[in-house]
């Protein structure tokens, strides 16, 4: 590689890193800016006295500010803490159900040469073209009669409408890429059809299934529209509407920034840890 090319490539790498990170880092910086330094003129890129108190305060603890003042827990702490807990619960249940339902289906669609395979996959993928707001309309009516509005169960159901088609889609392409004949070997090794799936195909697809799980978790954790419409203000409120309640209200922007960081940390960590698996996602899936 010529020197010139080397320089160009490294500069481009720095630009890409900056483009990716600056928005995130800036929110983190705002979250540790003390209120009296916030929005100072001219704007500072780093606070003179970093102030981490927003975090313990949002998690419901008292905190001592850099100036030694003892600050009460944030008024939004229960909102945020409950939101985080609910989000985690809902996301875990959604992930579990999605995997239980989608792994066998994706496996079957990818490897069993079913009749109606194409039609099934196309239907599933077509549902992805629905605007999320459009699916809320029928649920609007459904939930009132079933009493599911404002419950975690209801939210899990709505999240499944997104994760199930998505996971079947990407799962199908995952399983299609498994070595041929794996199940035949399992069969002669003494597995029934079903055990061949559970004992061989699933373990052999560890990374793929991990990627599916991560994607299901992220999708649920980040889901906003259903959570806003059905669960805002309820005890089953997840993090996104809780953050929205702070965002749209008289909150100190630095505190909102800290809340944002708290809510974004789990997906960011998860994605960073499992990014090697996520990279395997292949959307070509169907031909």
């Amino acid at each position, binding site marked *: *590689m010529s020197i010139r090319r*080397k320089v160009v*490539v490294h500069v*481009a*790498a720095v630009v*890409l890193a900056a*483009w*990716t*990170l600056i928005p*995130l880092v*800036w929110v983190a910086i705002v979250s540790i800016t003390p209120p009296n330094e916030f929005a100072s003129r*001219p*704007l*500072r*890129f780093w606070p003179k006295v970093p102030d981490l108190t927003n975090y313990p305060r949002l998690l419901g603890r008292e905190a001592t500010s850099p100036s030694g003042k003892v600050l009460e827990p944030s008024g939004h702490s229960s909102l945020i803490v409950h939101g985080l807990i609910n989000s985690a619960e809902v996301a875990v249940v959604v992930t579990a159900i999605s995997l239980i*339902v989608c792994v066998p*289906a994706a496996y*079957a*669609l990818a490897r*069993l*040469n*079913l009749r109606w395979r194409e039609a*099934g996959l196309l*239907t599933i993928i077509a*549902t992805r*073209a629905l*605007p*999320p*707001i*459009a*699916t809320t*309309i029928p649920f609007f*009516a*459904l939930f009132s009669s079933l009493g599911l509005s404002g419950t975690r169960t209801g939210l899990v159901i*709505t999240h*499944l*409408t997104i994760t*199930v088609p998505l996971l079947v889609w990407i799962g199908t392409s995952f399983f299609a890429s498994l070595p041929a004949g794996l199940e035949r070997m399992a069969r002669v090794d003494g597995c*029934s*059809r079903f055990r061949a799936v559970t004992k061989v195909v699933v373990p052999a697809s560890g990374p793929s299934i991990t990627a599916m799980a991560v994607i299901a978790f992220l999708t649920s954790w*980040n*889901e*906003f*529209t259903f959570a806003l*419409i059905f669960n805002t203000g309820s005890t089953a409120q997840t993090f996104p509407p809780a953050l929205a309640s702070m*965002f749209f209200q008289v909150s100190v*922007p630095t505190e*909102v920034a800290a809340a*944002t960081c708290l*809510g*974004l940390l789990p*997906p960011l960590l998860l*994605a*960073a840890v499992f*990014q090697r698996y996520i*990279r395997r*996602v*292949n*959307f*070509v899936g169907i031909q």
Partner: protein
Amino acid sequence: MTSTATVAPPHTPSTTPRARFSSRISTNRFGLLLVAPVVLLTVVIVIYPVAYSLWISLTSSNPITGRSRFVGLENYATALGSGEFWRTLTLTLFYVVCVTVMGTVVALGSALLLREKFLGRRVLMALIVLPWALSTYAAAVVFRYVYSPQFGFSAAVSERLGLDPSNILAQGSVIPALALVHAWQFAPLGAYFLLATLQMIPEDLYKLAKVDGVRLMGRFRYVTLPYIRLPMAIFLVLIGGQAATAFDLIYFLTSGGPGGSSRTLSFFIYEETFQNQRLGSGAAMSWILLVVVVALTVGYYKVALRVGNRDMKEET
């Protein structure tokens, strides 16, 4: 024969236990059994509600008085006859174009870069996943801190450069500004996706092109592009569909403003169904949007596949 130590008892039909259920049924039935939960779930929580929303779109009901009546295609006619609907549809298409262009440029640029060797490549490869891990709502919250003329990063930078912090979310620039957030959030997926394809292009092809005296842009046009056209098409369909149905980004950053400058069809539907609670006309507009998105997707897919196939044929 040398192995005579012992001989296992012969298998006889009477000692062979019955095969497990999953083995006894035909492959097709076993497959249907595995697919059944998804089919059932999809029917109950996706197909049925969607079909139900089709029914809703043929009705008109008042949220307060509770009066509801069947109106046939009136909601569709009203939507298609209203200037506001066409305005939001046009805005949606503009938004989709902005998002796809920006998203593709960033994704392709990242992929081309990540194919090179440089210091910290592995780290960067892992880093770029981060925006993707957020949804558009979270990206919107994050970019509020970038765009704000009062305390945003962009304001801080422009101040340092001696410029007047401009209002990025103003009439003229709001759609590209929102599209940028969308592209920021969605491009990593495209980058990974394209990179996987780029890495399959044989290095020899580039050498050959070099020997033939093809310049950098030419090498991109004649070597790289034919390979990535199909994955690129798929990425464009994905990001385009995402953009067409995006709502939370707009909800958080502009609420459709200023003055309706960012009221895309998806947000318009939100206003109609949720703020006004006019489920009928909201559902009708959703269906129109769905048809538009599906038609564009299918049309685009077909074109892309044809072009892709043609390229591949030229190759061989």
